[in-house]
């Protein structure tokens, strides 16, 4: 049946690509529109600001993507971020000499621990992710309040080297952007070119058969949440360093932005699907929204509605594009 090949084919590559193109097209149009409204949008400086402000979101999104691919979700990242940020900041306050790298390491480790706890709950005690993370969200947030005793850590209490983490740059590229780029390269490779990476997809795509075919589902899940935690911890340090202030209510509700970035980026809540390239466009769209709405100088009272509307529009466009490609794939069978 040689000539039958390429019929009945839903080539995963093409679909995903076309879907992302749809989203990218959407972004381009949006950008053009914004540019018309405010010429300072597509300036080097603004783009730099845009990406810098989106860096943290993008870090969290990679982790969240992997979590969602395994049919999970993590509502606790806002709280984890605050906790690791606060503890790191307090350490920096008491040991101003602490080297930035150690600070980053410390925050990441705290996040990792939080992630491991959640991973344990999800993988070992069959609690559903949404519940486990909802519960731990409260716990971590509460701990942050308690540890900080309601006090903030302010700019003047942080060593300049620590603040330099977020403000400094190499060859004119801000550290945050560099960190984000490196992370993406690493995880792109990890997800697409390593066994463990593929196992994440397998587990999300069909947990039962993953078990039967001898994949260690629990360990994979655990790993995913641990990674999410570590990335969140890292983001916590970057956040605190960027804004030169650690509050106990830092990043409250930020998880929703992250989830939104993922779903706009074509990561399916049903699990099993989602690509780094797609995710990037999702993150980009949210970044643009956060950056441009103020620029557009629309009434503050319209911002939420516009943001919600655009997100909805974006996901719907994505869905429609995907449907079309599916159809095309089958029309091959006619004739």
């Amino acid at each position, binding site marked *: 049946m040689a000539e039958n090949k390429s019929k009945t084919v839903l080539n995963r590559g093409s679909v995903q690509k076309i879907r992302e193109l749809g989203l990218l097209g959407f972004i381009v149009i949006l950008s053009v529109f914004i540019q018309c409204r405010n010429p300072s949008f597509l300036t080097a400086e603004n783009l730099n600001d845009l990406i810098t402000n989106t860096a943290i979101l993008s870090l969290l999104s990679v982790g969240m993507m992997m979590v969602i691919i395994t049919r999970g979700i993590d509502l606790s990242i806002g709280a984890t971020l605050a906790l690791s940020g606060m503890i790191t900041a307090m350490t920096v306050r008491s040991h101003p000499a602490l080297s930035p790298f150690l600070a980053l390491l410390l925050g990441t480790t705290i996040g990792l621990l939080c992630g491991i706890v959640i991973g344990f709950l999800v993988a070992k005690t069959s609690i559903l992710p949404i519940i486990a993370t909802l519960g731990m969200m409260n716990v971590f947030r509460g701990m942050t309040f308690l540890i900080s005793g309601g006090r903030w850590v302010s700019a003047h209490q942080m060593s300049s080297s620590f603040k330099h983490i977020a403000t400094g740059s190499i060859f004119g590229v801000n550290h945050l952007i560099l960190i984000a780029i490196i992370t993406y390269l690493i995880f792109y490779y990890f997800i697409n070119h390593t066994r463990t990476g593929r196992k994440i997809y397998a587990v999300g795509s069909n947990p039962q058969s993953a078990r039967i075919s001898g994949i260690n589902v629990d360990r994979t899940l655990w790993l995913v949440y641990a990674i999410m935690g570590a990335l969140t911890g890292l983001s916590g340090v970057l956040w605190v360093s960027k804004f030169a202030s650690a509050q106990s209510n830092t990043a409250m509700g930020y998880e929703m932005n992250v989830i939104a970035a993922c779903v706009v980026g074509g990561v399916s809540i049903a699990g099993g699907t989602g690509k780094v390239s797609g995710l990037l466009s999702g993150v980009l769209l949210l970044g643009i929204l956060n950056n441009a709405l103020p620029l557009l100088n629309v009434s503050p009272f319209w911002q939420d509605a516009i943001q919600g509307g655009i997100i909805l529009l974006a996901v719907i466009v994505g869905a429609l594009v*995907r449907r079309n490609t599916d159809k095309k794939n089958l029309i091959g069978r006619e004739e």
Partner: protein
Amino acid sequence: MSSVNIQTEKKFSLQTFFFQWEWLLLLIFVMINIINAHLSPYYLNTFTLLDATMGFLDKAFIALPMAFVIIFGDIDISVGSTVALSSVVMAVLYNAGVPMYLAMLACLSVGLICGFINGILIVKFKELSAIIVTLSTMILYRGIAYIILENQAAGGFPQWFSFLGWGYIKGIPFILALFAVTALVFAFLLHKTTFGRKVYAIGNNAVASRFSGVKVDKMKVIVFTLTGFMTAVASLFLTSKMGSTRPNIASGYELDAIAMVVLGGVSTSGGKGRMIGVILSIFIVGLLRYGLGLINVSSQIVLIIIGLLLIVSVMISSLNIRMGKSKE
């Protein structure tokens, strides 16, 4: 033919009977009351207790239909925003001279419409899944509320309107009475009618349900619309309790409602859970918060306690599901 005789009597097994999630909830419920009574001299006092219910029952009206949604395996995180929007619309209309009862009607219809929109989007764009759709509408609906009322507050409702949130009939808070009735209706709807049976069927296996002639899409639209409607009811009570409204009310209600439902033993993976559980957990969470408040535990600690309660109890429940018994 090798005819095997198929039993039609359910064998009553003590083990199955006692390993029911609701028993545990009941236990927690009783314990909480004992502890509270022990810790605060003001707690054990019918008047106080009845009063306490006023504090949390508005959310409970959302939890009831949310249970249906979660049994579907879906979720609705737009409810908080729906509360805000419907409440704002009511206030604005009333201040524009519309009679109060019409304004209230408008409030309910707004909720209805919000829910309906969610439902339609969800069935028309299955690949999006409920969480994505409602995530977007969550932002959208609240956004609209902001557009309508901007930074204003609106209120000045007629005196009788405060009865909803604050009134008593024969010493029983009106909201409690109404909730009791509503809860009963929902319990029957879920457990004793074909509607409820279909809800479970869809939650377990939507495809098989469709192949068996269940109108899955129609069911989903109905349930989400119902959720919107009940959310508006909650909005009425909240607004009445506050006497005025702003676009930023009821933030975070969605998670509270979801937590109540999940604690009630309804699995977010769909198909499982019972109404009794949900109702119990509503009172557990509510009275626990209230009791801790009475002894002035700091809100941070309350956060932690609620979080742990959620996790620990669900952990136990998943254990006794493992005891190899089906739930419904």
